[in-house]
């Protein structure tokens, strides 16, 4: 098996989430499955490759979804994809959210911006086995109402049993929910750090202040899980690019317990 070779996937559908973010429903030519939190390398033939975390439930059969923000060279090209186009994937790669450690606990998902992609996968996976967890909460922040991803899905997640609070940095006239950076959601939401775990994903600055807030609220560093986004190339622990201190984010992560990396300099950069 050549770990650099890709599996072809057919683009089934493209959903426009925001002006910069699209969700792609992909159908792999070969059998493919992943554990929530793991990532894939998505290849635009002859153009380049970038890492993304599937945003659908790990239990969903058949096609899976990735949600991609336009951020540069490769993602611009990915955004040009249409139904019936072909892309390549490698993976699944890296570590996943340790669901067994979440069982019987209150699971708190704290997300910002396109960081919602891996959290959506986790949320849907948790909801698929809802009875295993004490409580499932999503705290989500976006820049403004227009930047919220999966806009029409939050209601259905609530119906399935998730507790959800949302905030935007800058509200408009129609916005009825909270206004302020994501950590302000803790003003109205009481956590249970003793029997809780928290999962954080979002832009580095949000991850940093989100994590510090969780610590302040009494979460142990062992109970906070982070998805680290680093420059990646090989995705299989060989090229050296994704270093988080002594770890390779692609192999030892991307999901890390905060306790494992808390003393490493520069993790938020």
């Amino acid at each position, binding site marked *: 098996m050549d770990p650099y070779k890709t599996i072809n996937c057919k683009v089934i559908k493209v959903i426009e989430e925001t002006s910069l973010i699209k969700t792609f429903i992909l159908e792999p030519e070969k059998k493919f499955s992943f554990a929530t939190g793991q990532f894939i390398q998505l290849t635009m033939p002859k153009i380049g490759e970038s890492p993304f975390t599937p945003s659908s439930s790990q239990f969903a059969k058949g096609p899976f979804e990735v949600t991609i923000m336009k951020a540069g060279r490769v993602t611009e090209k990915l955004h040009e994809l249409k139904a019936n186009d072909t892309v390549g994937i490698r993976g699944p790669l890296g570590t996943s959210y340790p669901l067994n450690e979440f069982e019987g606990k209150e699971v708190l998902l704290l997300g910002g911006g396109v960081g919602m992609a891996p959290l959506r996968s986790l949320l849907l996976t948790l909801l698929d086995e809802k009875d295993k967890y004490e409580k499932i909460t999503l705290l989500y922040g976006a820049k403004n109402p227009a930047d919220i991803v999966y806009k029409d899905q939050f209601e259905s997640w609530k119906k399935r049993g998730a507790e959800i609070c949302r905030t935007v940095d800058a509200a408009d006239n129609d916005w009825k929910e909270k206004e302020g950076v994501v950590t302000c959601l803790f003003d109205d939401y009481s956590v249970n750090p003793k029997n809780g775990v928290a999962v954080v994903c979002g832009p580095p600055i949000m991850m940093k202040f989100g994590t510090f807030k969780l610590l302040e609220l009494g979460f142990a560093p062992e109970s906070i899980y982070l998805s680290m986004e680093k420059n990646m190339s090989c995705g299989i622990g060989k090229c050296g690019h994704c270093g988080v201190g002594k770890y390779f984010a692609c*192999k030892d992560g991307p999901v890390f317990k905060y306790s494992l990396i808390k003393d490493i300099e520069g993790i938020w950069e």
Partner: protein
Amino acid sequence: MEQKFISNEKVKALTKKLIPDYEIFYPRRQEESWDWARMEADSEFTFEGHRTVLPLKYFFYSPQENLVEKKKDKPRIIFGARGCDTKGLSLLKKIYLEDPEDPHFRKDVLVFSADCTTHHPDCFCTVLGDQPWATENFDLNFSIVENGYLVSVGSDAGAKFLKDHGGFFESARSEQEKSMSSHRTSFEEELKKFNGNKVLDLKDLEGKIEKHSDVFKEYGKTCVSCSSCTNVCSSCFCFFLSEGDENKIRYMDSCQLKSYARVAGGANPREDLIERFKHRFTCKFVYRPQMQGFNGCTGCGRCTAGCQGKIDFQEVLIKVAEAK
């Protein structure tokens, strides 16, 4: 393991016989330095000397290559690899061949190493506590004795090679074994003395690198981020991938280049030159031993020899390691 003897004439005859079936390289003397040359039927060679200018690693993978199945190349034999290069293979093999295996890292390379008999002015294997001869990752090792070489076996492939070419070798005599030991000891002593009889204790280096970042500030001043140091290193492994027609293309890369750690949106955790310079040390003496179990440096001194900023890697290492 039993040792064998091969005479100077027989080595010549052996390499001649091997040429049709193998791609063979050996260290060729160029005034004061050694480079890798392809063995031809009329090549004049000796296994005296020290490490080549370029490292052994590029016989196992290329600095730039298409990751496609190659048309069946001949297997390779590399004569005269030195201890620092074979030691460097430990980390490279750990990275490339384990979990998952990289099918483009060649497994059909026989390493016929040779004891160093001279050293480059930048060599410092002994300062790291290592010996100037191959202790691992060799198939056969050649030690110069009178009129030929004492040959030691380092792997099953080496043992098989000896068996398949038994006619060229004879049993070693005990005075040849003694002569090998005494050559080794006296050369090791010579190199140790050259390096001020230092053997560094690298145990607490992690804290020291942070604590004495002023050393990196001072020495890193002249670094121009050219990446020679990592390109010629016996154990640096970093690369990046781009898209080829069939599969990826792999290019060697370097943590000393500014673009190395850049992420989407332009954020770069190692924007600062001194941070990058320091990272090379931390990678080699802290991260790799902790995670892969091997140092990322074997003391070959190539980084110093090739540095455009005239930075003496050994000197920096000693400064930090000996600081309180």
